[in-house]
């Protein structure tokens, strides 16, 4: 390498100093490269934060201020009218409560099914383990697709019911794999063997020894399930029609989509800006749906990173 030659010319004293300061990233002093990198990161962070501050500012501003386009990142003529209207709109609040309920049940059942699959498969002694693992991993790579599923759900009479939002997705091969890897890598076999010799059954070992030792992964995977369910609405689009089965994300999507189409149509024939949903109200709806995630986000972020790392160990 050509930097091998260059090295001889560099000052020895300098490199010694950087080594003594230790670590992989030790550099002498604050350099321009540090400033450039920090600038890039700050810029990217701004793209993640500013849009939401803008929408939040809009949602609590007065209608005229928003229409005159003078609201940027700070609200003007502060009013909570729009939020009051959103909360009074029964279909919005009902949809929100429905989403919470579906998410909670989904998470609970999902964790149950996941443990049922992951614990036995983490036992090397289990006879038939390779075959069962294979059967349970196939869905990760090959699914039949939307239409065959649609017909299947129709035949099972769960189309356009509450259950179609829960049952098809509660078993997740990906989450199962993470949990299985965790069991295998962190819970020593000897612990279970001694419990086994003391006469404990498999159920008792799982319930009293393995699960209490696995709290971090249980927290992480619960969040995977909960956030996944909370954010997804494609199945809502495909498999449900009834208004009372609309989860809040789907509701928001429809609301904004219809406002956009109305705007496009009116732009085409009048050239003016007429919208079916006033902008302030729309902003309030977006915030209504975003705030729950933003509130719990700092808490769940940590567990998410942890879970992804565990998955990466043997993913």
């Amino acid at each position, binding site marked *: 390498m050509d*930097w091998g030659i260059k090295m001889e010319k560099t000052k020895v004293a300098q490199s010694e100093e950087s080594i003594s300061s230790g670590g992989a990233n030790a550099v002498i002093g604050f350099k321009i490269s540090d400033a450039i990198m920090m600038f890039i*990161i700050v810029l990217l962070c701004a793209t993640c934060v500013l849009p939401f501050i803008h929408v939040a500012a809009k949602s609590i501003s007065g209608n005229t201020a928003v229409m005159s386009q003078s609201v940027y990142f700070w609200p003007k003529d502060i009013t909570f009218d729009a939020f009051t209207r959103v909360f009074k709109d029964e279909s919005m609040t009902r949809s929100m409560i429905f989403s919470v309920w579906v998410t909670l049940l989904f998470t609970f059942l999902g964790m149950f099914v996941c443990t049922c699959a992951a614990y036995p498969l983490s036992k090397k002694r289990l006879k038939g383990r390779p075959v069962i693992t294979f059967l349970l991993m196939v869905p990760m*790579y090959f*699914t039949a697709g939307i239409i065959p599923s649609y017909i299947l759900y129709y035949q099972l009479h769960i189309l356009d019911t509450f259950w179609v939002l829960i049952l098809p997705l509660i*078993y997740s091969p990906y989450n199962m794999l993470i949990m299985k890897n965790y069991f295998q890598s962190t819970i020593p076999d000897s612990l279970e063997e001694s419990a086994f010799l003391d006469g404990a059954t498999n159920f008792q070992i799982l319930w009293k020894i393995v699960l209490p030792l696995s709290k971090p992964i249980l927290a992480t995977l619960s969040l995977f399930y909960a956030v996944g369910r909370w954010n997804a609405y494609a199945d809502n689009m495909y498999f449900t029609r009834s208004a009372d089965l609309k989860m809040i994300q789907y509701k928001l999507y429809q609301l904004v989509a219809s406002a956009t189409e109305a705007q496009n149509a009116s732009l085409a024939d009048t050239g003016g800006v007429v919208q079916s949903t006033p902008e302030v109200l729309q902003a309030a709806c977006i915030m209504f749906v975003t705030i729950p995630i933003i509130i719990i986000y700092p808490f769940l972020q940590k567990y998410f990173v942890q879970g992804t790392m565990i998955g*990466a160990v043997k993913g």
Partner: protein
Amino acid sequence: MKNIKNSNEKAAVKTKVSWQSALKRDWQLYLLLLIPLILVIVFCYGAYPGLRMAFMDYKPAKGYAGSKWVGLNTFKKVFKDADFTRALRNSVAFNLLDLFVGFPMPIILALILNELRYKRFKKVSQTILYLPHFLSWAIIGSVALTMFKPSSGLVNIALMNANLIEQGIPFLNEKWHWAITYLLIGVWQGMGWGTILYLAAITGISGELYEAAMIDGANRWQRMLHITLPGIRSTIVTLLIMNLGRVMGSNLERLTALGNTQVKEFQYQLAVYIYQKGISNNKFSMATAVGLFQSVIGVALVLLSDRIAKKLGEDGLL
């Protein structure tokens, strides 16, 4: 010869437990496994027989029994369908662009994050950069609209106030602008979260390597290029394989949340095709055929890229 036989027999004695004793000891474990197995058999494998619709002229009113088998005719019809070829072209083009633009971004970002020296700054910026991953496409789409509307979007207003443009840029309302906005929003959504696996891999690189390089006088850029990047190579390959499998994929939520009728020409991708033909127009056979095509190509791509990666001496995925 005798030795081999002997050792084989020994191994057999060691591992072979009869089903009877296995069931006696572990019946509770099998009982637990029954629950996920039933779910997978009912909801995943149970849908496989429905794939025969792709080879039939399926009429919902007649059911499977009353519908005619047509062999590969549905596929022939699909490939002649102008809507399908457009959807296929758009899907492949946009997915490849997603891969080209979106795949390197988390790697670059991870390298930068790794070089940051203020721990607190690094932590806070990571938390912020992960945020878009936790938001649904409905939220991202509606916020994008608020930002990019030609007449009243924040970006356009700011640019107009700065006298940089006279008329709003139709970020989401003209197909070429839309293509770029769609891609960038995709990259933006995935870039922060995508760094996690790379950062995890970077922590696994031995600090001694860096120290040795520094004794040799390697600067920051050289260390990045010759130590960090090679150190995360297997992670890059694994993720590349997984992403290649998605070249045939298509995300209905992202497409519909960002799309509108004005950009139909580019927004019309396979997920939209299946949704409209299958669910809205009841053309079950055609939509099933397209779905099957998508799945088979997806699996084939994963297997192929895995094989190539192994040939190149990497670990591969499977």
